[in-house]
């Protein structure tokens, strides 16, 4: 998954749990958990909503990095 994030870190700074965080951006607790684990890449809208809650640029929370496995896959394809 080449999309990384610091959501957990930012959420801890704000002192809110996943359930509360989900309510703040209009998604479920499960979705927040999946984003933090890197199992789900949020839509642009959701990423912007999350960034708005923390009053930061979206790139401060989410960033894209090509990983080796991804590169290897592309080469094979």
């Amino acid at each position: 998954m080449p999309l990384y994030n610091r959501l957990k870190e930012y959420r801890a700074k704000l002192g809110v749990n996943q359930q509360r965080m989900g309510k703040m951006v209009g998604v479920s607790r499960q979705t927040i958990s999946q984003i933090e684990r890197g199992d789900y890449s949020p839509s642009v809208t959701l990423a912007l909503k999350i960034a708005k809650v923390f009053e930061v640029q979206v790139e401060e929370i989410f960033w894209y990095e090509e990983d080796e496995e991804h590169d290897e896959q592309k080469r094979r394809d």
Partner: protein
Amino acid sequence: MMNRREEIKKENKKAVPLFILLICIGGLVGGIVGGASSMIRLRIDQVFGGRLIVDTAFVIMVAVAILTHIAGWYTYFKCKNRLKGWDEEDEEVPEHIEVGSQYAMWGITVNSIVSFACFAVVASNSMNQIGEDTAKLRFVMIAVVIFVINLFAGVLMQQKFVDLIKEMNPEKRGSVYDVKFTKKWMESCDEAEKMQTYQSAWASYRCMGSLYPFIWLFTYLADLLLDIGIFASVVVAVLWLIQTSIYYYKAIQLSR
């Protein structure tokens, strides 16, 4: 452009030998079984109409129902107790409840399908003999009562799990008793949950797309070997047609 065309041709060429091999194997197997069928043609009643099959179907229906309800209610009360003690901080608790509920829902659905299949075997093989035998009538009536109770209890359990999920996720909407339940539930799901549903549906579509030819072949051969009639293979073809048509119709709609 030429490179891309060559690439496409190369990819097709690579896949063709296996495709031809599979077609040949399919033809060979079909030919052998088709030819052999005339020699080993059996009456379907000899296979499915026996008392043993009816009794076995009844036992399977009851056993699966009992197991499902014991495991389901146990999981429900376990999840409910964990939810009671949840402080909204511990992330393990909701995950445990969500996974438990999903397994329970799966079990309830499997139980309903098994129940439908077994009930059909029990009822269809006993109905024509009811007039001759009162014990048969009693047997069918017991099967009907178990079948109906099992289905209603399944729906009740499903609703209990849905209530549990709704308690944990206040944004969720819908009641199992409502005919528009799946629509309302889906509307209350967020983007990640919808994606999960789409991925699961895609996995199911792909699996069924591969299975339909085999199921059709199976029912067709069953007609040849067991004389069940062509109705089953026609039904499989119709289901296959419906699934494929809905997929393409929706894909065309979405691509506009």
